[in-house]
């Protein structure tokens, strides 16, 4: 089954991380890199990215007509779509047998924080 792991963390922590000494940052990124390599080599990790800080986010809120479908108008705002203390810092798409395997993988994530696991749905499924 395919899942998305979304890595969330406190925005203040992300900011603090960027002010850590360079060697500390490098070591932390290397641990994440090793994690990715290990799971890629095992065929579990399909793709993934770190995201730029939430301060770079733009939210597009589509406006809906009476019938509930988008009416072509949109509200564009600065910032992430949810106003929460925790921000998504990156994601990976994984392919593992079941939820327990996905949880086991999330447990080994070396950067700490909170991880949300969501099964991917087939776009053709309604």
């Amino acid at each position: 089954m395919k899942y998305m792991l979304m890595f969330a963390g406190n925005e203040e922590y992300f900011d603090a991380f960027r002010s850590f000494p360079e060697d500390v940052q490098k070591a932390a990124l290397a641990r994440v890199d090793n994690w990715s390599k290990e799971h890629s080599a095992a065929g579990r990790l399909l793709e993934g990215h770190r995201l730029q800080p939430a301060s770079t986010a733009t939210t597009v809120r589509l406006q809906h007509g009476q019938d509930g479908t988008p009416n072509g108008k949109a509200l564009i705002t600065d910032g992430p779509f949810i106003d929460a203390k925790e921000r998504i810092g990156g994601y990976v798409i994984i392919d593992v047998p079941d939820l327990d395997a996905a949880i086991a993988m999330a447990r080994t994530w070396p950067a700490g924080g909170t991880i949300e696991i969501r099964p991917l749905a087939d776009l053709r499924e309604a």
Partner: protein
Amino acid sequence: MIADSTEAVELGAIFRDHAGRLVAGLVRRIGDFDLAEESVQEAVIEALDHWPREGVPERPGSWLAAVAHRKALDRIRRQVRYREKVAELTSRPLESYVEPEDRLRLMFVCCHPALSRDAQVALTLRAVLGMTTAEIARALVTSEAAIAQRIVRAKRKIDAAGIAYHMPDDSELIERLEHLLAVIYLLFNEGYLTTSGPEPLRRDLAEDADWLAALLTRLLPTQPEPLGLLALIRIQRARSAARFDGSGDIVLFDHQDRSLWDREAIAAAIKLIERAAQLGPPGPYQVQAAIAALYAEAPSFDRTDWTQAVLLYDLLIRLDPSPVARLNRAIALERVAGAGAALAAVDELAGDLAPYYLFHATRGRFLDELGRGDEAASAYREARALTANPAERALLERRLAGR
């Protein structure tokens, strides 16, 4: 309909013995939790229709297996991959599907931490214990529609999120076991707090919890905590005859007639604690059982070894720093260090326990002890607003009236 309560209890025990086994076997064979669970549920409902009128068949397990098997086939025929599954189902009789570990796997699925605690409870009652949705609603004092929706959602999540039907790895076993134990203890408390004995058409969840805990001790014989939980449940059940007076009012622990306690059951439960202690270091349920044993063995409430009780609570809080454990420690502390110290300890918990009626009831008692009657009364009123249990409300009314 079921003629009388004894019969309802007996049928419940039969379903409990077979339903989980059948669901477990079906899931393993066809890998479809929803289908397995629904088929067995339909078999239970059919049995409830036939058995009270026609009598319980000589081999109720085979009867249920046959009906569940037929129901599963009916359902599968409506599905796309039906040929494979029909072949799988017809190759062997349903009863021979089941291995002892299947039921344990089923329990781990029902109590998976990715499901909400409410969903874990409802699924365990239905899939493992073979209760009908209507019975669950009665036992948990909620509507049938609410339970039905909870079960549908939970099964949808099991399927959509890919919760697999397998045993947790050794490295996760202890953590996953905690969820099973928590669900069983919650069932026990639900049954223990809401009933004063068998009622017509209402399953005694305390007895079901006892049965589940005993099953776990057999399925996981090297784990000490199931034994601890079983001992805890049995010590509390041994005292149940003294918990209510003739008119159904709660008798507080310190006023209970100890001659009504089942001493043999308490002694047997203490043996379980000793067995658990040989298996490994103590966990929270063993310590809670040890505390219950300490109270149960004291010649009278006043002659309880309070210093030992506080020490055991300290150990419990180290293992499981729950606010409820700290509240109970404060109750023992009152005996060792007085109501002033106990009130100070309880007040620290206000942030965590404000929505919990026992927090306010306990505060009220300490405040009364300290001669602060007005504050005590307002604490009792807060407590009364937070519990729906009639026996508990009556007790708080008595305290408010007696001033």
